[in-house]
Each structure stands twice: as C-alpha cells, then as structure tokens.
C-alpha cells in the first residue's frame, strides 16, 4: 500500500485527492480537500496552499502525515488573465438642458411651460407670461406654496415647479391651481434662470409623453427641424421617466459622444489584423477567428485595453523572468456590455447607460518555475514530490471517473480566469485549449452593469438565487414561490431584492427590480460561458467539427453554478452533444478532476513500470 496525494494548483483554488494504491495497482480513493490558491499559480508562493490541502486531505482520510509516500502535482503553468472595460459612449449635457430622474414622489401631474424664475423673484414678476418656479435648498414647503399661490393670484401664471427637497406633493397639495412639481433636484442652483422651460409629471404608474418625444419638445419650444434634430438625444434620454424637466438654453446641447477607445491588433501565425474596440464584441471575435491561432495581441497605448495587456505582460515577465517583449497574449475574449455612468452636466445625479466592451486576455508559458516549487514542497513536507502530466490530460482522466462517462469524451473546465477544454479520442490522445474569460469576468460584468461597485456582492448575485422581501415575514423567490419566517426580517431588507446566500440573505441596495437583476445575471453567464464553451469545443473538435464530439463533461468551480451547466447543455444540444456536470469519483461533483487524474495517471504509469520522473 502506498499513500499518495494528488494536488491540482489552479488560479483560484488548490484541490487535493488522497488515495492508497495497492501492489496490484488498485486505487482506493480516501478523501478530497480544497483551499484558496496562495499567490499566482505555478509559483513558489503556492507552497502554503498546497501544504494546507495536503494536511486537510490526510486528516479527512484519517491518515498520519508520516505515512505519506508521494505528492503528485500538476504541470501548473502560470496563466495570467486580465480584465478591462472600455466605455465607448458618453452622454454629456452642456449648459444643463434637462433633468431626467425618477424621484419617488413627484407632485401634481401634467405639463407646464414657462420661463424659469426663482421663488425669491416671483413677487417682483410682472403679471402676464407663464413661469416655472425654481425652489432652492432649505425653503419650507408652506412658504413655497404660499408664494406660488400669491403669484398666481396676482396674475403671474405659475405652470410648474422645480424643487430641491423631497417636497413635491407637500407643495402641490397646498396650491390653489394644480401644477406639475419635480423634486429632489440636488443641483437646483444650477438650473438656468430666465430661460424657457417645460416640466412634466405623469400620473402614478405612467411615464411622461411629451418631453420623451422629440416632436413633443419641438412643439413646446417651437423648434425648426434642425433644432429638433439637435434635441433628439434629450428626448431619448428621458424615455421611461415619470417626471422630467427640459430647459432650453441658447447654447444648450446634449451629445452622445463616442469616445475613441483605440484599437486592438490581433496577430495570428499567418495574418495580422487591426480592429477598433468600439466596433463591438462581435466584430472583435470575428476578427480573432480570422487570424487563429493567436500568436500575440496588442492594445493601443493610453487606452484601458492597452494598459491591461501591459499589466498582464509585466506580471508574467516578473514571474517567469522572461523579458517583457517575449511574453505573448494567447487569447482574448470580448463581451459587449453597458455601464451606468453619471451624466456629465446632469442636475439630479442622473445616470445614463453607456455602451462598453469588456475584454479578458490571457498569457501562458510552458516555462513555469515548477521545479523550484516542487523542491520547496519537498523541503517543507519531507516527502517525495513528483510533477505529473499535462493539466488537460489529467482533467480528462479525472473526468473519466464520473459514472457513465467513457472515451471518446470532451471536458470543459470552467474556472475563474480561464475556460479550458480538452477532448480525448478512443485511443487516448488528448487535444486541449485554454481560453480567456470565465467566472471572474461574469462577476465583473454583473458588478458594472448593475452599478454596484461591490465585487463581493456581485459574486454573491452570480452564485445565489434572488428573492424579494414582501413583508417582514415572507419573501417571494425568483420562481414565484413564497418562503415564510418566524423571526421578522431586518428593516434594511424591507421591500428589497435580496440575494439568498449560504450565509444568509443580503439586501441589494439598488432600485433595480428582481427581474432586471436576474436578466443581467443570466446574460452575463451566457455571454461568457456559452460563448466560450462553443469557442473551446470548436478548437478541440476533430477537424473543427463540433458535431464530432458526442459527450461533454463540465468541470471546475463555475460548474457548481446553479444555471451555467444548463445553459451550456442547451447550447450544445443543437450540435447533438450530450453535456452534463461531472461527478468525479461519483462523490466530488465537478471538483477535483485534475487531482484525481494525477493519482490515476501515476498508478497507471507505476503499474506499467514506466519510471515516473522523480525529483530530489
């Protein structure tokens, strides 16, 4: 009997599999363990994480560390992935021409048109032409209502109001003549005075009709066709709001500027193409397909993408002592996304959804400092350390321990930084590929699209289902079922969308509906994992024909996801492929494939009396 532990060092997770090998070559699997990878994969920093999983696996197996014969580690080549987001549009309002936000409680209803006048100037205003009253910070609602009523009584028609505080209904309720009131305008002091303006508030449950329509604005301000064309982006920006203000300033303008996002140079083995980042993900990926296999890539200096490539190259060069100029980008994944960004020149903290392209890139070497890592491990634990076979081959061997799986088969390893695929033929030949973009990209898409600025919460939204707190004692789940509690929910959860994590319910502090959050979550997973699964299978399939692959086993941390494996299964079913989540050794689920494969490989090699490549 020989006690061994197979250890797989991944970018995010280090996994172990403890087993005993009999003289007859029979393997008895004892236990598995996992820990966070310490440092960058394939470097000596990994020692701490490896020591931890080996100890845990032995403890779980009920074996003493002294009985350990050999540690088997994978050929962990460093893979470094980087993420960058390039915003390609920007909404700028010059001269503050509009306020388009959704205060919870605007007052009154209808459309008011007139010249903007501050509350203080109302008494001095000559009767006659209609005005829009601007109420600054700190003005009490009774005074505001009183002054407006007085002006109206004097023959100054006040047709609408723009208010700093959350006072719209309080003011509207005290007016003798009802007018629309837009409130919570944080930068009310920036509203230009003496200018023609329109205020619109829709009835509860409705959205504005006039100011969200270019011809509506044109009618209100008597614009000619050229001016109407200029104002069109304002109307577009106001669509879907319950209240809005448009102030017509002589030079007022709102533009949809396209930001030069630079270009991406993709260098294949025989071709070299340049693609503009703002052409979008589809164009970038099509260009990439055209030059494949990718030999290297470069981004324009001074852009986010250029910076990301430089970072990735620097890190890899530091790790492997390879000159920066020799580090090659091996894959790129582009994803179309949008980011809520504060509108430059907005008066109420408005956000506009801007288009962006997210990019993941990956570098990989075959020159990892593995030997040094193995030597350090040997010193630390005082046992033999062997560097096992290629990661993809090991993953396939591990996958084959899933009940019902046999050759030929393909695996998809869905990790944090990369998506890997391998296929094995009936004769055991293995073809593999490593692609940029995986779980971490999904998390960052969720974070930016929902405007969370909280990667921890985004990670939870990715992993766990949603619910809405409907009372202090019950929540409604995504699928419509209700759950009841004996203890009241905390006040900060009241009426909020919650994410139901394994450590409790966490409120999501945004105004997004549950449906919206769900849609963003699912779209992010589709755009990364479905795209990458198809891309990966296409590259390992015999003669590039995905239909030749009959069975796919999905592995890795992201295969634990509650919907990703189903999305992939559905997408590949189109090609007649059966896809399912792996269950390593019938017990481990989609985890531990490489660690298990290392043990299987070592055993087979020993039995065949092929001397393994021993160290130290």
């Amino acid at each position, binding site marked *: 009997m020989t006690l061994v532990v197979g250890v797989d060092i991944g970018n995010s997770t280090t996994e172990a599999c403890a087993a005993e090998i009999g003289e007859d070559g029979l393997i008895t699997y004892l236990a598995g363990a996992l820990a966070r990878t310490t440092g960058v994969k394939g470097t000596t920093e990994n020692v701490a994480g490896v020591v931890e999983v080996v100890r845990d696996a032995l403890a779980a197996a009920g074996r003493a560390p002294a009985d350990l014969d050999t540690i088997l580690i994978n050929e962990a080549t460093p893979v470094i992935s980087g993420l960058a987001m390039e915003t390609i549009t920007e909404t700028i309002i010059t001269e503050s021409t509009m306020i388009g936000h959704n205060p*919870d*409680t605007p007052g009154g209803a209808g459309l008011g048109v007139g010249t903007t006048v501050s509350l203080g100037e109302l008494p001095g205003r000559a009767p006659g032409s209609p005005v829009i009253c601007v109420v600054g910070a700190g003005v009490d609602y009774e005074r505001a209502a009183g002054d407006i009523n007085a002006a109206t009584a004097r023959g100054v028609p006040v047709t609408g109001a723009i208010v700093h505080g*959350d*006072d719209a*209904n309080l003011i509207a309720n005290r007016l003798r003549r009802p007018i629309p009131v837009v409130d919570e305008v944080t930068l009310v002091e920036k509203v230009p005075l003496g200018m023609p303006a329109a205020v619109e508030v829709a009835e509860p449950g409705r959205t504005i009709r006039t100011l969200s329509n270019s011809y509506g604005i044109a009618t209100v301000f008597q614009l000619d066709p050229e001016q109407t064309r200029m104002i069109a982006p304002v109307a577009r920006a106001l669509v879907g709001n319950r209240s809005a203000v448009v102030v017509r300033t002589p030079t007022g303008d709102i533009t949809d500027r396209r930001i030069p996002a630079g270009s991406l140079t993709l260098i294949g083995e025989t071709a070299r193409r340049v693609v503009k980042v703002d052409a979008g993900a589809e164009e970038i990926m099509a260009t990439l397909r055209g030059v494949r296999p990718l030999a290297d890539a470069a981004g324009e200096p001074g852009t986010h993408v250029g910076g990301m490539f430089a970072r990735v190259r620097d890190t890899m060069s530091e790790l492997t002592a390879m000159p920066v100029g020799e580090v090659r980008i091996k894959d790129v994944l582009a994803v179309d996304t949008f980011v809520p960004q504060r509108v430059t020149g907005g008066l109420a903290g408005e956000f506009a959804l801007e288009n962006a392209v997210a990019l993941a890139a990956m570098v990989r070497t075959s020159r990892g400092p593995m030997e040094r890592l193995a030597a350090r491990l040997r010193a630390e634990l005082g046992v033999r350390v062997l560097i096992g076979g290629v990661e993809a081959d090991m993953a396939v061997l591990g996958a084959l321990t899933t009940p019902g799986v046999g050759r030929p088969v393909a695996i998809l390893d869905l990790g944090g930084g990369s998506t890997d695929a391998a296929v094995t033929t009936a004769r055991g030949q293995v073809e593999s590929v490593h692609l940029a973009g995986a779980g971490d990209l999904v998390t960052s898409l969720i974070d930016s699209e929902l405007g969370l600025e909280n990667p921890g919460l985004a990670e939870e939204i990715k992993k766990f289902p949603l619910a809405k707190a*409907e009372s202090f004692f019950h929540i409604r789940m995504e699928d419509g079922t209700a759950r009841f509690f004996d203890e*009241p929910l905390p006040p900060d959860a*009241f*009426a909020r969308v919650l994410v139901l994590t394994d450590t409790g319910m966490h409120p999501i502090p945004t105004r997004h509906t549950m449906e919206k959050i769900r849609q963003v979550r699912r779209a992010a997973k589709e755009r990364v994992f479905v795209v990458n699964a198809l891309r990966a299978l296409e590259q390992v399939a015999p003669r590039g024909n995905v239909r030749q692959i009959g069975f796919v086993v999905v592995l890795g941390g992201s295969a634990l996801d509650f919907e990703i494996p189903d999305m992939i299964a559905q997408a590949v079913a189109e090609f007649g492929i059966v896809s399912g989540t792996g269950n390593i050794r019938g017990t481990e689920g989609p985890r531990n494939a490489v660690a298990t494969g290392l043990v299987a490989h070592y055993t087979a090699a020993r039995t065949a009396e092929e001397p393994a490549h021993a160290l130290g």
Partner: protein
Amino acid sequence: MLSGDLHDRRADREKRTRPTVVVRYRPVPANRRCLRELGAGLEEEGVPFRAEPVGEDSTARELAYGAALASDLDVGVGVDAAGNTCVHHAKLPPEVPALAGPPSAARGMGHNAARLVVGIPFKTIDQ
C-alpha cells in the same frame, strides 16, 4: 330601489373611518414641530394618518406599538416626551420595532412609516 341601495352603501362607507397610519404622541409643546415633520413625511408619500395625543407617560416604542394595533393599516408611529420617534407594525413582536430615531429624524420617519404601508424600500434618513 337600486339607487336607494347604492346610496345606503355609500353612507355606510362614509361612517366607517378611513384607513390611516396612527401617530400617538406625548402632547408637550416641543412635539409640535416633530409632529409637523412626521406629517410632512407621510403626506409627501401620499399616505393618510391621524394623530392622537396620549396622556400616560410611555416610551416611543410602546406608543408606536399601541398605535400600530389601532391602525387599519397596521402601521403606527410613537413620539415620546423628548421627541424621539418610533415606527411599528402590528405584525411585529412588540419589542422589535421597524425603526426608531431621534427628534431630528422625524421627517424621515414619516416617509418610512408611509413606505412601510406602500411596500417600498426605506429612505435613507438624513438627520
């Protein structure tokens, strides 16, 4: 016949009290301002309320819980002699109020008492 029937029902409805949030407060002069702010918060959110002075000395929480039980909307607000406010719901345990705050938070407490009725997330209160 029919019209008479309708009329009766309408009169019936009029007699019943309108469902409101109930605000119970200690009638000390300093609470006038607090009550005005509470009312403003509730009114801005469009939720009706009725205010009832209370003689015996109780904590804001006790007043709020009693008020919640008396409210057809199950939501009550209590204001103690120092102007501290508390928002309660009839379905919550008496010792676990929904929210509590100092006198300076009265406006926000009015907003949030209303939101408890309407079923939208609470407003962050600036005091």
